[in-house]
């Protein structure tokens, strides 16, 4: 059995360094807000962010059981209309607090309930934030406190050898809604990738395992942009995302992924099958090869 993850508050060395650098100038900031004023300044300058105004909802588990794999879901309620400009996720106290930013394109849809989910690593007790940017440039934020942490243990792979095999294997799925005329469809991209954070010591070489993670993912539907995502190693090993997109002619998804080594991975579009969620079968899973 392993240690309980409910009481661990110690950040790892690298995180502590990152925090101290950022914390120093923040002494005058509201203590509850921690690093956020600086992060906000870096990402959005002096723009106004409206908090908890119902335009964006962030869901996270009440109790975090595996800090290396914490599901986060962002929902944009149906009353929010029009194009979305961007969505940014932050975890304030992670070594790199910026988790991901999605820059939306025309195929992201104009209405209905749009959503995005992924799985993240949580290094320490922290606030998670989702900041949604609408077409008019307005910013809207939802927050959730992530009330558990795994310290650096959260960053350790269960089976490093298994994680290192089959790197680049990509599965792309589309889920057709109950009514195929529904304006919003959902998709999923998963890629085998260790998403190494560069903070793990390899005791055989006494060196840190170099950081290597997915930094960019572009998803297109029938050739039109759904989103381009910039990501960090705060995304869990084997990055896995679910998202919505506008119902198109063929609803074929094309995925292009680049990691920090510059290696490119691609996933082809897939034809839909009928019925709610029935598309999540072998026939809708497309495995792609490493292009390198």
């Amino acid at each position, binding site marked *: *059995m392993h240690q309980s993850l409910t009481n661990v508050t110690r950040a790892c060395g690298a995180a502590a360094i990152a925090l101290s650098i950022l914390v120093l100038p923040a002494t005058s900031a509201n203590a509850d807000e921690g690093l956020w004023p600086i992060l906000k300044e870096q990402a959005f300058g002096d723009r106004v962010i409206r908090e908890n105004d119902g335009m964006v909802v962030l869901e996270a588990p009440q109790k975090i059981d595996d800090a290396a794999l914490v599901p986060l879901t962002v929902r944009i309620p149906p009353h929010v209309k029009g194009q979305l400009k961007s969505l940014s996720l932050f975890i304030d106290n992670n070594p790199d607090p910026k988790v991901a930013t999605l820059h939306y394109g025309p195929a992201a849809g104009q209405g209905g309930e749009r959503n995005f989910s992924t799985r993240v690593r949580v290094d320490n007790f922290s606030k998670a934030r989702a900041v949604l940017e609408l077409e008019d440039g307005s910013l809207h934020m939802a927050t959730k406190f992530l009330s558990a942490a795994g310290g650096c243990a959260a960053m350790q792979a269960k089976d490093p050898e298994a994680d290192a095999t089959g790197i680049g294997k990509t599965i792309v799925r589309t889920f057709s809604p109950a009514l195929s005329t529904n304006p919003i469809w959902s998709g999923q991209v998963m890629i085998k990738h260790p998403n190494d954070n560069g903070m793990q010591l390899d005791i055989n070489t006494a060196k840190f395992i170099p950081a290597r993670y997915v930094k960019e993912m572009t998803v297109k539907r029938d050739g039109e942009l759904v989103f381009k995502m910039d990501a960090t190693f705060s995304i869990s090993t084997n990055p896995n995302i679910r998202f919505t997109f506008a119902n198109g002619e063929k609803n074929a998804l094309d995925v292009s992924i680049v990691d920090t080594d510059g290696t490119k991975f691609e996933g082809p579009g897939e034809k839909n099958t009928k019925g709610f969620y029935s598309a999540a079968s072998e026939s809708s899973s497309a495995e792609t090869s490493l292009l390198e």
Partner: protein
Amino acid sequence: MCSPTLISRKNFLRAGLVLAATPLLRYAPALAATADTSEVAPGVFVHQGRYEVQSPQNGGDIANASFVVGSEGVAVIDTSGSAKLGAELRDAIRAVTNKPIKYVINTHMHPDHVFGNAAFKQDDPTFVGHYKLASALGTRKDSYLAANEQMIGKDAFAGSEIILPNLGIKEPTKLDLGDRELLLEPQVTAHTNNDLIVTDSKTNTLFLGDLLFSVHVPTIDGSIKGWLAVLDQIGKRKTARVVPGHGPKTMELPEAIEPEQRYLATIADDVRRQIAEGKSLAEATKTAGFSEKDAWKLFDQYHVRNVTAAFAELEWE
């Protein structure tokens, strides 16, 4: 375990006993600062941990720890969750034999099985583990130390350290204790990626480490598929008894592994079905395997984590 304030007094009393009755020491009954162990087979001793999460109250005494006494020396199999508990286990060994402690074997990396290693440094034994144990412990060292000190408390955890194995087992290997041999068999990734099965040849006792949980809910920190496969193999073995990592001191095959097989298979079935239905990880953690809730202790502490691990593994099938 007695409270820290009593230990010194009892140790003092015990020291008096040593002086007064040195020749009788090896037959002395267990004292308060000595681990409570039972001889489950000739020369095979097991201490049973509590069905709890590490706390200041239990001092980290939550896993089973064993030792085997041969004509030439002693092998320790898991050392419990702190240097203090390791020292109590060592006292229990010294209460029955003065033979050299030749081997300290860890069945896997988890803190509740390895932090007592420090108490045996004075014996200069060979520290033994799966060949992946060293790297697994090396990368987790800092977080294990910090987390366990926090959970157990500074005093109770004092002196605990990570001691890496100096003998890594990659192929089935025999260790000689004189009139008996221990067979060490490294496993594929199952409970963790560094599980080792130890068999005592003389009594046909199988030490399964955390490949076997009983009463305490199993925890997946490796591979659910690998674990089910390893359990299939274990179920075919003919042994006199098995010693679980968490559970009673001894059990018998095949009944011993059946609840755990059912638990893991239930999770695997539920999760596979939900993946096929297009359900998300967050959805699966709310329902998968909950039919097992009343069958285990510490279910609330570990079950959702197990489902999370299973989902992340099985979605790649």
